């Protein structure tokens, strides 16, 4: 049976591992008798092995430093202890981190100030002029009233009638243009401002002080 050089080379390689069938050995032998090139190849592969194996043995056939069994057993158990220490540390760090995140969340929540109105006494006011203090202490109660558009009404006239901005009316009624027509039903958002404190910026100076001491309110001049 005729085989190619490549096939012969594969068989040479497998012959090293002694995994060839008797038939394959015979085929290879027949090929090698006629093929100088493959004989050289086989010789070179054998030479590689003959150099490599003793070289590796010279390099690496060394003896290890004998291991101490008690030290091994100890290190094995030490590792268990260190695992426990590591686990404890991880848990503690997680708790501290969770506490930090929780307190930060709490601060943000209380800082928003919409759900729980802050008493006037602890409001931080940066400047004595306090021009915007009255708006800060006011809270709005809004209700929607139905209004039927009369003849000659415009969005502007309705807005001024109810003291509401045009934009608010348009937003509540989902309007895109300002056009209104007679008998059109509009929802008017009417908001009543309620003051929780009697703060008059022109007459009062409110100073922010720490929570422990009460706020100092002095009549300003």
């Amino acid at each position: 049976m005729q085989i190619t050089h490549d096939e012969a080379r594969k068989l040479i390689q497998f012959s090293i591992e002694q995994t060839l069938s008797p038939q394959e050995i015979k085929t290879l032998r027949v090929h090698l008798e006629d093929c100088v090139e493959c004989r050289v190849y086989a010789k070179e592969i054998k030479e590689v092995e003959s150099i490599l194996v003793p070289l590796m043995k010279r390099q690496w056939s060394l003896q290890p430093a004998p291991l101490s069994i008690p030290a091994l057993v100890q290190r094995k158990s030490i590792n268990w202890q260190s695992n426990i220490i590591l686990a404890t540390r991880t848990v503690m760090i997680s708790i501290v981190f969770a506490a930090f995140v929780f307190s930060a969340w709490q601060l943000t929540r209380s800082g928003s100030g919409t759900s729980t109105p802050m008493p006037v006494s602890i409001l931080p006011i940066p400047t004595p002029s306090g021009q915007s203090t009255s708006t800060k202490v006011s809270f709005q109660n809004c209700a929607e009233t139905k209004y039927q558009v009369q003849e000659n009404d415009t969005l502007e006239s309705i807005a001024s009638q109810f003291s509401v901005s045009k934009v608010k009316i348009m937003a509540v009624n989902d309007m895109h243009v300002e056009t209104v027509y007679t008998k059109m039903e509009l929802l008017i958002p009417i908001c009543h401002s309620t003051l929780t404190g009697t703060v008059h910026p022109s007459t009062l100076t409110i100073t922010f002080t720490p929570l422990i001491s009460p706020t100092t309110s002095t009549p300003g001049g």
Partner: protein
Amino acid sequence: MHDTEPAWLVSQCIAGNENAIESLVRQYETGVFRLALSIVGDQAEANEITQETFIAVLRSLRSYQDYKDRKSFKAWIYTIALNQSRSHLRKRKTLERLRNTLASIFRVETQKQISPEEAVIQNDKEAEIWKSLNQLDEPFRIVVVLRYFHELSITEISEILSVNEGTIHSRLHSAREKLRNALKHLLGE
């Protein structure tokens, strides 16, 4: 202790019998050390890897015992040793890269030391083969080392590396080709 009794040995080691642990360690320590040495090429590091391997082995004996579709005991220990060696090699490569970077930044000339390995090489052919062996990609080099130095069978190598036997054959073929080319290059000069 015989190689045919790992099941007994394993259960005794799990029970904490120090004599059994000693038997196990003495039976495999040379093999593990030489495997580590052939991968990392440094004796001190190989000793360290041997110790780490046995600590890892002792720690995971129970899971080895419980694992139904387990490897042969020798293959299992060699796999652990190989993984430890690879991890050392990775760390060393990272350190070398860092050192080279620092050396290039500060323009420090690092003096190349002659390793004990190089001292053992006797002629040009050996030097050439050794150089090509170390230039082989890791999967090819490991197969050559396990086959020729540790004299493991293809089946054992495939078990250690968890790769099928066909792949081991093909890696060996191409590794031999590369080594032959290195030698051929020398003869051609």
